[in-house]
């Protein structure tokens, strides 16, 4: 399986190159790639159907427990077959659909990467490998939604989808790490035996919430549903493939995959049930006032995704069966209808349903596919959608709590979906022929094969469910529930309660269609869409974050050097001061011991001169005062019997004062900038720093310093360093490399002065 994935990525990488050579036929070449994948996996069908699980593993980052381990069982095989089958249809279709686009080669690159990642995702047995593919699908989805990147709306929608799914992705990552912490391994198949241990762990609620956050964002469950309709900015083949049939089901796949390992608890089932039910219902309502074909389909997709999630939340045997059938049915019919919507767009120039009608003679083949898919979507016998809807209802009828609420919501939602179907798949063909932007004509073969293929599959699956899905259903439910259901899929269950419900749904849906203008009026009066306006919160949060970001940056990075310095000093004082005052000896510090009269006098002079420096309005005075401070420090060196240091200090101080005085004449007049308030503030800060450093020094010198260094230098300086002046020997011998560094500093400074004086680039220069 790993080799197929590697082949997939390589093939995608070469897509733009191959496209350049083969433009016209590229659709066929491209479609052969998912077809090849489909065939490779269908060859494994018998093995899987007989109950085998195929595993494969190569280590990747073993020290973190991350491996390329893959697992093919009923659930992953079902998904892989859906991905590759619809992939074949879409790749072929896009060959014609995308031919007038720029950069079609890049399009195939992205969609190829997407398909391969999606396959990798459903095959991964290692959570982190799964996550890697998960993120890759988000990125390729981003690039595909923003494919028409000259449009601002495309860019915005792409970003929105990326941020929502990416954010959920990060939560998922945290959830998986926590889960592995409990289980001790990143392998999903290792979780099955320790279900009880996981569920009873104290980390369990966090694991559930984080993993579900990942799943819900990816599968656009409420309240993260808003990105999906906006993702319709993508070219139609992308919408059909990623945002209806495959990627948006990744979240649902994740729930199904983990259900057996970490599910079965109240928090797991209820969260899923509630999120799914709300999504199902709200999406159906929101579909109501849409007129754009793709938006209509997007909202109905959302509603279905909600239903699928709800079924997982119910979690009974029957519900899992319904989940499986509904999943297959939806992928087939929704894929078809999206492709049909693309044909309308391409061949009539509009996607607005109110502008389409009477096309049945002009697009007969398209109509065949569309009608088959529509009947399936409406749940009409003998299509697979009928079985799907029947099992959904019968599983809801088994629920103990809130049975009738769920049933009512499901029926209403499905009725809305029926209405959407009539609008999208039936109405455009019948009635009066409406004028369109382009003269309508039947789509080319490349665009027809896909929809027909999928629609016919839907029909065959409905007619012969035991041939097409029975075995996969059995194996998948083992993956999800860890037990065999022993339920056979049948098209016809006889006249019963459930059939009645299907019939009611259909009638309701037709009713909604005929009275949609009146109902729309009522809904508008309720201004429902305002409350549920999809991206309201997203925009709020994004804009809020951005305004906060610029505010905090204006405060922090305000451009004033003095504030930067104040920030830094206060931080220093705060961090060190807190600990300093915990020191017990701090109160009993005695500064008067051993203080001689000379030291005292010099200290007073230093302090006095410092005051002169900061209060003086004359620069000359200030410089002289600085000189005094320097000389006093020199005298201190003398007092501590270091005459050579004192001499150096005197020399430097003299030189500095002279240089300063020379420079002074070139400077403009001294101006007072600071106001009294800031002066006081600065004085307090400066005084605190001074006092604080003094205290530390006093504390340090309070104890007798034990240093071998002093003794060693005194002894070795002459004996080994061949010098009587210890300081010199330290500088040029013991610590010569310090001196090397300092010499380098001087040399670089010299270069710097030279270069800064000589080189003045003009503002325009680069």
């Amino acid at each position, binding site marked *: 399986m790993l080799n197929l994935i590697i082949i997939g990525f390589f093939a995608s990488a070469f897509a733009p190159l191959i496209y350049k050579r083969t433009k016209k036929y590229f659709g066929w070449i491209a479609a052969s790639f998912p077809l090849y994948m489909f065939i490779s996996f269908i060859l494994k069908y018998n093995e899987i159907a007989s109950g085998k699980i195929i595993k494969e593993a190569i280590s990747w980052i073993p020290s973190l427990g991350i491996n390329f381990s893959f697992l093919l069982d009923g659930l992953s095989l079902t998904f892989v077959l859906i991905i590759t089958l619809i992939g074949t249809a879409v790749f072929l279709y896009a060959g014609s659909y995308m031919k007038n686009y720029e950069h079609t080669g890049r399009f195939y690159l992205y969609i190829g990467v997407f398909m391969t990642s999606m396959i990798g995702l459903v095959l991964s047995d290692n959570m*982190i490998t799964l996550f890697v593919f998960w993120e890759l699908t988000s990125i390729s989805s981003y690039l595909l939604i923003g494919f028409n990147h000259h449009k601002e709306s495309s*860019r915005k929608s792409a970003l929105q989808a990326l941020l929502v799914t990416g954010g959920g992705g990060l*939560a998922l990552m945290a959830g998986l790490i926590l889960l592995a912490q409990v289980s001790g391994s990143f392998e999903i198949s290792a979780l099955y035996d320790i279900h009880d241990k996981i569920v009873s762990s104290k980390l369990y609620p966090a694991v559930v919430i984080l993993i579900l956050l990942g799943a819900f964002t990816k599968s656009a469950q409420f309240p993260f549903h808003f990105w999906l309709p906006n993702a319709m900015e993508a070219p139609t083949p992308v919408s059909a493939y990623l945002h209806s049939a495959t990627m948006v089901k990744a979240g649902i796949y994740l729930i199904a995959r983990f259900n057996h390992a970490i599910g079965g608890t109240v928090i797991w089932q209820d969260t899923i049930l509630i999120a799914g039910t709300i999504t199902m219902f709200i999406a159906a309502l929101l579909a109501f006032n849409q007129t754009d074909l793709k938006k209509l389909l997007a909202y109905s997709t959302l509603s279905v995704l909600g239903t699928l999630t709800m079924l997982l939340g119910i979690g009974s045997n029957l519900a899992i069966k319904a989940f499986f059938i509904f999943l297959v049915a939806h992928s087939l019919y929704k894929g078809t209808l999206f492709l049909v919507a693309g044909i309308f767009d391409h061949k009539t120039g509009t996607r607005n349903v109110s502008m389409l009608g009477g096309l049945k003679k002009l697009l007969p083949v398209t109509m065949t596919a569309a009608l088959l898919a529509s009947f399936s979507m409406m749940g009409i016998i003998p299509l697979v959608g009928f079985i799907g809807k029947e099992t959904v209802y019968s599983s809801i009828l088994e629920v103990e709590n809130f049975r009738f609420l769920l049933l009512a919501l499901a029926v209403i939602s499905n009725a809305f979906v029926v209405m959407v179907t009539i609008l999208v798949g039936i109405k455009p063909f019948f009635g009066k022929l409406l004028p369109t932007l382009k003269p309508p004509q039947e789509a080319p073969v490349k665009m027809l094969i896909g929809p027909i293929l999928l629609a016919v599959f839907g029909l065959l699956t409905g007619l012969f469910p035991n041939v097409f899905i029975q075995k996969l259903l059995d194996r998948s439910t083992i993956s999800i529930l860890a037990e065999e259901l022993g339920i056979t899929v049948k098209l016809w269950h006889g006249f019963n309660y459930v059939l009645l419900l299907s019939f009611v749904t259909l009638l309701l849906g037709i009713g909604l269609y005929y009275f949609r203008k009146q109902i729309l009026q009522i809904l508008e009066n309720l201004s429902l869409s305002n409350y549920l306006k999809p991206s309201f919160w997203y925009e709020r949060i994004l804009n809020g974050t951005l305004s906060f970001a610029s505010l905090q940056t204006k405060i922090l990075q305000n451009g004033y*050097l003095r504030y930067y310095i104040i920030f830094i000093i206060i931080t220093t004082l705060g961090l060190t001061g807190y600990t300093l005052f915990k020191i017990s000896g701090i109160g009993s510090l005695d500064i008067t011991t051993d203080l001689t009269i000379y030291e005292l006098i010099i200290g007073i002079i230093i302090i006095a001169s410092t005051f002169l420096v900061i209060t003086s309005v004359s620069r000359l005075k200030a410089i002289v005062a600085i000189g005094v401070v320097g000389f006093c420090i020199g005298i201190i060196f003398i007092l501590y019997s270091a005459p050579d240091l004192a001499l150096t200090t005197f020399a430097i101080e003299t030189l500095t004062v002279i240089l300063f005085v020379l420079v002074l004449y070139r400077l403009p007049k001294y101006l007072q900038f600071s106001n009294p308030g800031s002066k006081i503030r600065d004085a307090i800060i400066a005084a605190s720093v001074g006092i604080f450093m003094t205290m530390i020094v006093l504390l340090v010198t309070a104890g007798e*310093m034990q240093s071998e260094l002093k003794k060693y230098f005194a002894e070795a300086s002459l004996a080994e360093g061949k010098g009587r002046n210890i300081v010199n020997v330290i500088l040029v011998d013991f610590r010569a*490399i310090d001196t090397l*560094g300092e010499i380098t500093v001087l040399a670089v400074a010299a270069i710097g002065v030279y270069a800064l004086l000589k080189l003045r680039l003009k503002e325009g220069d680069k």
Partner: protein
Amino acid sequence: MNLIIVLPIIVPLLFAVIMLFFWKNIKAHKILNVIASICSLAVAIILISNVNTLGILALQVGSWQAPFGISIVADLLTSIMVLITSVIGLATAIYSLGSMDEQREKFFYYPLLQFLLMGINGAFLTGDIFNLYVWFEVMLISSFVLLALGGKREQLEGAIKYVTLNLLSSAIFLAAVGILYGIVGTLNMADVARKIPFVEEKELVTVVSFLFMVAFGIKAAVFPLFFWLPASYHTPPIAVSAIFAGLLTKVGVYALIRVFTLIFIQDTNFTHTVLLVIAGFTMLTGVLGAASQNDMRKILSFHIISQIGYMIMGLALFSPLAIAGAIFYIIHHIIVKTNLFLVSGVVDKMKGSFNLKKIGGLYRYYPLLGLLFLIPALSLAGIPPLSGFWAKFVVIKAGLEIDQALIVIVALVVGILTLFSMTKIWNEAFWKDDPKGNENKIIDSFSAIKLSKKVLMFSPIIILALITIIIGFNAEPFFNFANNAASQLLNPSEYISKVLGL
């Protein structure tokens, strides 16, 4: 045979001095600079393989027995830092050949680069806390001159803030060294580490540790000490910004890691919790700063800060996995961040501006440039399977393992905001149409650049992108290395005994 340890300092110095003898002969400078970079790379490779096989290496300069002289020490962390420095040095050397203007080249741009690299390597290699201060000074003066070289108004304004705030760091550092010496009576870090446990006044040690935290924190550009970085990094030529972005702050991070794993481990409950708080705010304020910018260089600069937060988080969590994560993060970050700056330089040359509002349309005509941007950008945002993902993954895993949920949440939120700002650059510079219209595909001055120069600009970008991919797909050896380096840091006894010859 340990002489190899000191070569990463000597080689750049030697070549810089030779270049100065050629005075303003640019041709000689260029050739010598590339040779110097290649030699440094070779030295670094030998060093790392030696350390890998022989364990920690130590050299006593002038054969003065530690702790009386100065020790040069190379453990795994040091040797990987030296190796990456040489990689970035070479990348910048080549990029500069294609992009640097003749004026700056004449005024000792290349010798200054080598002096800077000497300072950086010195800081990584020294085993003496005062000597570290000296190397910081070498770094500071060389970077200051590089920053100001050219003397444009904007540059000088940035350079003044840079040098003032960094001098403040130096002052605090020096005071801290003095106080530390007053407490333990030695400057050799291994010796300090050996003596610190016997200090009676534990709080005094903690006070000093905070002084070091502030001094190195300024260098590492952590919250709330980072002001110098966004004030200056967008002003010099992009090759300079790129090498600064990759290396300078990481020296600060390195110093923090060194002293807070070797010396100040007495009161980790307190000191490392403070570090953790700093890490959180650093990540957050940095990424928010980036979100509010429109100049590519400024966005990237603020992201340096934000990413430093992740590294400090690794240090602060102080578990073997966390430290390994921090080291992995540093390795990844240096490569990626330098590369992003280099790419932004190409964008500027093509479109004439770094301002996202003024440029656009690059992806349409230059998909490969788009790819070369996306690789480091997505890596920085932590998208798998690029290097940045593993870096983030390990740090977050480490945080979750020791129940630090809050910092993990911050790290995750910052992750999504990072993705936001990377897509912002992508959106504006690459996807959006050029606001000036499509006629103006690229500015004339770029078309006028010779092909050979373009190759020189693109080749380091491609190589660094490849390194990112290699680290991502083949993370195991890198992670193993980081793990070993972390375990050396957390068991300082080998370091101490090798340095002091016990």
